[in-house]
Structures are given as C-alpha cells and as structure tokens.
C-alpha cells in the first residue's frame, strides 16, 4: 500500500523528483502492470516497493512492513525472504549454470548448497527447462534465459514478485509465453505480482493496470478478460 509516496534524487538545484505522491494498492493474488513512458518513475516506484530504495516522503507498507524504517541489513534480509526479482537485463551470472543461478536466492537465505540446487532444479522443471539445468546461460535462447530468471525469482517462494520489462527483449510469441508462464507459475492467492512494462501486447494478462506519467499514477484500469 502506497500513500503519497514521493522520491527525490539529489538536492537543491539538482534535485529530481522521480515520484510525486504515488497512491497505489497492490493486492495479493493480483498481477498489476505499471505502464508509462520512459522516465515516468516506474522503476523508481518498484525499487521503493521492493525495499531497494528509501522513499523521501509518504507511506509505503509492503506485506505489512514499512521497509524504509528498517536498517539496511534488516531490509536486505526482508527482501531476501519476501521479494523475487526478474530484471530487465536478467542479470544471470554467466559462469554459473542455470541451476546455480536459480539457487542464488536460497543460498543467500542460508540454505545448504545441495538442497538449494535440488530446489532450483525442481523450479526449472516447473518453468519447463529442467533438462537444461546444467547449461550455462550463453548456451540458452533468450526465452530460456528469461525462464531461468523467472525460476530464480520464485525459487524461494516470495510473496512479492517484481518484474522489470520481462518481455521487452522478446518477440511477440515468446513474450506471450513468458506472460503465460508468469500467470501459471507465479500467480497465486498469497503472492502479488508487479510487472513494469510499456508493452501493450501483454495488457490482457493483468488484473489491474496502473498508468503512470511524470511521477504520478494517472489512472488505474481493470482490463477486460477475453
């Protein structure tokens, strides 16, 4: 829940107001799209929601927690337990296998190596590339790499999944499959999905779409499901 969330970068004459009083509710069990032109504050907003950036003003409670009030170490731990990330550039470690990449969130949480790899392999099977668990990212297609990123974001069963432009580098068909996968694997009554995008092709997958511009949420729509 965000109420009047503001984020300012810099100070004085060089201050940039990226968020200008955001009011937004994201519900468990929903897939919410954040759409808007480049520079409108979408990435800043998800950074604040995910506990990566502190807000400058306003109130933001995620899964009942005001993450800005937590000290850095506690905030990192909270992120590790509760948030899964699918980055636009995927940020897979090129020298690790698919399974090792997927296992990272579990290892950060302290899971032992063997258990983490086993769970990672299981998650890779759920996203449909279990047979490529030992492959390096460079040996996989863009769509397969995206599946690894999704598996990594879900392996530790987070309650909040944040995806930044998950389909921007994919063709229409592959992007569609990725969104179907997200819907199938990630969505659930105890999990909220936030997807930042400016790809109108995937609007139909959303439960709600928040349109942003210039640091504001202009309107929120509920797309019709065909």
């Amino acid at each position, binding site marked *: 829940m965000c109420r009047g969330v503001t984020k300012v970068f810099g100070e004085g004459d060089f201050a940039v107001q990226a968020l200008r009083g955001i009011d937004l509710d994201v519900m468990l069990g929903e897939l919410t799209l954040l759409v808007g032109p480049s520079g409108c504050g979408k*990435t800043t907003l998800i950074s604040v929601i995910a506990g*990566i950036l502190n807000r400058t003003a306003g109130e933001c409670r995620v899964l009942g927690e005001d993450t800005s009030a937590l000290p850095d170490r506690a905030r990192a731990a909270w992120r590790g337990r509760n948030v899964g990330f699918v980055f636009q550039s995927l*940020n897979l*470690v090129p020298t690790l296998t698919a399974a*090792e990449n997927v*296992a990272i969130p579990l290892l950060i949480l302290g899971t032992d190596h063997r258990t983490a790899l086993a769970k990672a392999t299981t998650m890779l099977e759920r996203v449909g590339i279990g047979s490529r668990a030992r492959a390096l990212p460079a040996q996989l297609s863009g769509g397969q790499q995206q599946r690894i990123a999704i598996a990594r974001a879900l392996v530790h069963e987070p309650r909040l999944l944040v995806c930044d432009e998950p389909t921007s580098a994919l063709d229409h068909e592959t992007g569609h499959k990725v969104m179907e996968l997200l819907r199938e694997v990630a969505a659930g009554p105890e999990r909220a999905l936030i997807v930042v995008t400016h790809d109108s092709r995937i609007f139909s997958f959303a439960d709600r779409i928040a349109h942003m511009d210039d640091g504001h949420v202009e309107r929120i729509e509920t797309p019709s499901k065909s």
Partner: protein
Amino acid sequence: MIRIALRMLVGDRLKYIGLVAGLAFATLLITQQGSIFAGFTRRSGSWIRDTSQADLWIMDPQVEFTEDRKAMLDSALLKVRGVEGVQWAVPLYKSYVQARLQDGTRVVVRMIGLDDATLTGGPPLMEQGSLDLLKQDRAILVDARDVGDGLKLKLGTDTEGPRELRVGDRVDLNEHETVVVGTFRRTREFFWDPVVYTTYSRALRMAPPERRSLSYVLAKVKPGLDPKVVAARIEEATRLRAQTGEEYEARSMDFILAKTGILPNFGMTIVLGFVIGVLVSGQMLYNFILENQRAFAAMKAMGASNMLLLRMVFAQVLFAAFIGFGLGVGVTAAVGQLLHDSKLAFHMGWKVPVFGGIAIVVCCLLAAFISIQRVLRLEPAVVFKS
C-alpha cells in the same frame, strides 16, 4: 555462497587463467629475486658450512670475514686446547698463493692447510681419490669444478692443447712443486678463486715465512656442553674471538654485504620486483571484481548483505592468491632446482616463500578491499538499469 563465489572465479577459464598467471608472475618476481639474493649471501658462508666438523672457530679478533687474513701466533692452538670444555682443537691455514700449472698457466688460488694428523676441516665430498691421500708427499686436492675452469691448462704444451687439470698433474704453488692426488666437490662460494687443500705443515712450507701463520683454530666442544659457553671461556682465556660456525657465517655475510654494496643494489631489484608484482596482481584482481560488479549488485537486490559479499570477494581473492602463489613458487623452485649446480646463486629457504606469500596475500587483500568499496556502496537499484 562461497562455492558460488569460487564458481564465478573459475567459470570464465580464460580470465581465471589470466588472473592466476598474473599472480604467479608476481610471485615469481618476488620469490625469484629474493631467492637469488639469499643464494648470493649464503654463498659467503659456503666454506664455513663445508667445514662442519668443528663446533667453534677461533680467530684473531680483527678478522672480519672468511677471506680476511689476520693470522695468530702458533701458541694460540695450545691455549685453546687448555680451555675447559674443549674436547680437541686443530690448526687451519688459509692463504692466497700463486699457482703455476704445467703449461705455464698462472692463477691465484686459495690454499687451505689441514691438521696433518687428523685432516680435520677437509672438503665435504671427495670425487676422485680420498682425503687420506693428502698425507702423501707434495699432495694437494683440487676442486672438481675448477679443473676445467680456474685451474685449466689454458696455454697448452708442445704436445697437447689446452686441457683440464687431471689427477697426477704437477702444480707449482709459490715455486713449490705439488701433485694433484684427488678432486673434491664443495659448495659454490661467493668468491671465485680456485681452492686447493693440503696439509698444514706443507702449507706453511709453501707459504711466505711469517711470524704469525695460524689462520684458525677449529675446536670441538665436549659432549653435553653449550658451544657458546665454551666459546666465552676461550675468549676470556686467549683474548681471541671464538664463534660457532653460524655466528661466523653471519658476521662474514654482514661484512660482505656492507662492503660490496650488494644489499642496496640487490635490495633495489627486490623492491622493484615486489612493487611490480603487487601492481600486477592488484590491478588484475581489481578488474576482476569490477567486472562482477553487476552480479554483486543483483545479489544485493536479492537480499545479500554487505558482509556476505565481502566474504565472497575475499574467498575469491584468497583462492586466486593461493593458486597463483603456489604456481609461482613452484616455478621458482623448479628453476632453482634445475640450475642449482650452476653459477646462478639461488637459495629458497623458508623465509622467501613465507614473506613472498605474505606479500601476495596482503597485496590481494588490499586490492580486494579497494575494489570492494565500490561493491559495498553499490545501490542495488543499478540492476534495474539495462
């Protein structure tokens, strides 16, 4: 996550090999120069170590190093024998004399005269003949290495060309005829003049007559006694200097280092090697960590604490340092072993690899510390930038 950190390190084979090779090269520079310096300084005491039968060396108090000729009166030997705690004491003569070989080749040699009765203080290893042959008339022993170099018949005769000195050849020492009865092997020394052994009385006959002719007294301490305690007694009783072999070796080495300027000259080389090694390894490590910055940022976003990232980086650094150092020391040691009997002075005792290892680890940790600052200050939000 430490295993992940190490996988990140070794996953890119080319970069990993480059990093390890850089660290190995840095180690090679540091340990090789250090070993050569150690080898050089150690050679200054080779003759003392080769003359290992005695516990104590007694000499004129003004003697500075092994080639410093300040002889004692013959009575010093009896005085030393009379000191409590001395089991036996024998004389030793050492001097430079001019040698003329059969073909007229002339060379300055170091002549060592051993106690006639016991031949104590003889060379460490005989190659041809035996030490006892020195008791034969006019007998000398020569270094097996010198026969083809310093003592070589370079001029040749009417009947044969230049050749190596052989057992049976005649050598005139200070116009006194001697015969080569055997050859020996000694540890390479700092000084290059050939060495010949003969008996003490024969050496005195061949040397120029002097009132003081006794170079050293070699003494053995009675079993169970501390050599340093007996040395103090000898010094008090005789007013001569009495030292263990190690002490004399150290003093001789210090004198040679100070007089020849080896220390500052070589020290400069070692320091340069160290600096280059540190810069090379530091730069490579710094680049490696920076290249993985984005991965670290992503892990930070996923909940990794700064402490976890620090542990990962240090694990990578120490692993690479360990492998690189091991390779570097291995190569240095292999080269040293390959050339151990050559003119290359090389000695890798425990100090060189230990201090070299400390240097490499300190340098790597420093590089890691500098580069990790960027990782620790990373805003996880950078991972949202493409």
